[in-house]
């Protein structure tokens, strides 16, 4: 006959052990997200931009498929670059069609970015090829690095 000892003490539990377990779980979770860290820092403002800096210019690129030249408005004011535009729906509203999938959104967008340097406002250029917008912003003469001649006597 088994003897049940009611008086037996529960094994000692560290009250903090549970917290430790939760912390480890959270660490693991954030590590998983960390792998996709670059995804996290993306803003959801359209369009997503990449900006590259070269010695004498900044290059801004964006993927804006389905936006036509006429519907796009790019302006630079001071050190702020503004992109505005709209994407038309591919199907005219009144055509009766039945959708199987609808993932592409249409609508308007407006985005302003602060540029890190002063821009030469007279020599901007932008091109839109295959849905990729490339804006070239030459730096203002003041902002381009100037080579200093060292005179030797």
């Amino acid at each position: 006959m088994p003897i049940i000892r009611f008086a037996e003490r529960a094994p000692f539990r560290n009250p903090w052990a549970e917290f430790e377990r939760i912390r480890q779980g959270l660490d693991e979770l954030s590590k998983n997200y960390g792998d996709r860290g670059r995804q996290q820092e993306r803003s959801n403002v359209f369009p997503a931009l990449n900006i590259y800096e070269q010695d004498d210019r900044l290059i801004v690129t964006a993927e804006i498929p389905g936006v036509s030249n006429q519907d796009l408005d790019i302006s630079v004011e001071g050190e702020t670059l503004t992109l505005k535009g709209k994407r038309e729906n591919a199907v005219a509203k009144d055509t009766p069609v039945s959708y199987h999938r609808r993932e592409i959104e249409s609508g308007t967008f407006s985005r302003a970015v602060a540029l890190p340097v002063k821009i030469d406002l007279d020599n901007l250029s932008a091109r839109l090829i295959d849905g990729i917008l490339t804006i070239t912003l030459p730096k203002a003469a003041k902002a381009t690095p100037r080579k200093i001649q060292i005179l030797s006597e």
Partner: protein
Amino acid sequence: MSNQDLKAQPKTPHAASTEEATKAENYFSPLVDIFETPEAVIVIADVPGVSQENVEISLDDNILTIHGKMTDQQPVGRVILEEYESGHYMRKFTVAETIDREKIEASLAGGVLKVMLPKQVPVQPKKIEVKMG
């Protein structure tokens, strides 16, 4: 619909690219609209950076494959901001309707690919008249 503000949608890596590619290239699954008219099934896909000669569309049995090679060169320079990655595009669909293969058409404009898959006209049942003997 057109007053709505556009949101940047993160690119989804192509699902079937679990096998490792020999080249370190990104494959994304393009966003698509698929709709049907009485005459055709139309697939619209966003493939920015893909030029006309680099699109491959195939209909094998009933699997429609859209494959776009992105050839646009990334600018050189110090990266100040990187919000998107560029890469190739690949997506496959099972097409339920019977498609007239001979008449498939595709066009590309401004990074948007449009594939027209005309439905096959069903063969008209032939009525056989029974003559009196």
